[in-house]
């Protein structure tokens, strides 16, 4: 299955970016064959509704799960409507996060864990 990890850079060594809507990259990782690609997040500089737009884009990429630091209420609504599972609380490198995900160390997030605008103005 395809998994999207919010990332600060385009490689597996990059750190997980804690922001879902405003991270600079998504690493789209395929758990079946271990292949991945980095996708720039076009919503990272959106004036408003970044999480909503990002959720939409992720959904278009046929991703089944998202691994990130935090997810806000609007992004949560979009991802839930798209039946995408959310695993929040990830830190460290993207590779670490993938390993932990494969080992079943992350629990599925039941609701938004930050307020709207959490990702604004943060680097």
């Amino acid at each position: 299955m395809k998994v999207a990890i919010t990332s600060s850079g385009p490689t597996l060594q990059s750190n997980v970016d804690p922001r879902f809507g405003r991270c600079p990259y998504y690493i789209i990782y395929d758990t079946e064959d271990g292949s991945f690609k980095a996708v720039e997040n076009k919503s990272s500089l959106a004036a408003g509704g970044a999480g909503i737009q990002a959720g939409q884009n992720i959904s278009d990429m046929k991703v089944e799960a998202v691994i990130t630091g935090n997810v806000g209420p609007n992004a949560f609504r979009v991802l839930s409507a798209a039946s995408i599972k959310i695993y929040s609380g990830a830190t460290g490198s993207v590779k670490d996060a993938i390993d932990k995900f494969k080992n079943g160390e992350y629990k599925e997030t039941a609701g938004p864990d930050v307020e709207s605008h959490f990702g604004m103005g943060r680097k």
Partner: protein
Amino acid sequence: MIISVASGKGGTGKTTIAVNLALSLSDVQLLDCDVEEPNCHIFIKPVFKSRNAVFIPVPVVNQNKCDGCGRCQEVCVYNAVVVVNKKVLLFPELCHGCGSCTYFCPHKAIEEEKKEIGVIEIGKNGETQFVHGKLNIGMMMSPPVIRAVKKHINRKKTVIIDAPPGTSCPVITAIKDTDFVILVTEPTPFGLNDLSLAVEVVRKLGISFGVIINRSDLGNKKTDEYCAAENIPVLMRIPFSKKIAEIYSRGDSIVKVLPEYREKFQELYKKIEQNKNQPGIK
């Protein structure tokens, strides 16, 4: 003539200028367009005679007619509409009420319902006619409320608009289509930085403007140097004064307690008249 009072930086004295200018002239209408935190009424003490709600249209989807084509999402530039798994999700708090999704929906599946976002109150005190808008708590879109305040402009009078701080949409909505902008600043690095941003906005809109330096004996000379270099008229200077601060904190107006200021504000009006036909292009 319509005069708007703006600043860039907050807390420089917009309301002080707007209120005292209004009270120094006859046949005036004062509009408080700082609808996120209006406070002119504290100084004007008007008796309100009417109160009307302001609404924006927000979309409602008729699921029976919608086939999930996604056109509404394409045309919404505010990310207030998304289509996931052929289902429309609406985010009314991001909706600007522009009506695009309703207009472009090929299946006529979107209807609009009215959402209250604020109120307009109209009143007067003596000769001063007063209108202000109040954005409801939790609402983010102030421009529709500002436009609703400006619908009450009476061009037969001298109109004074107290604008919100900053340089974004609310300010532009407030100062647009006015004849002159007073930019109130203070001679500090923050004041100057935000003044220069506000000057760029006003120049882009092509409106004549001038600067008032409040607390003019504090800070440094950089604001004066900037105005001279940019060929911007300095219309008035108000010194830093404990007396003025006390008057303000009691909700009084300067011109009532210190009558000599009435003449200074009338002088200010004359300078505005002299400068109003000089678009502030460098």
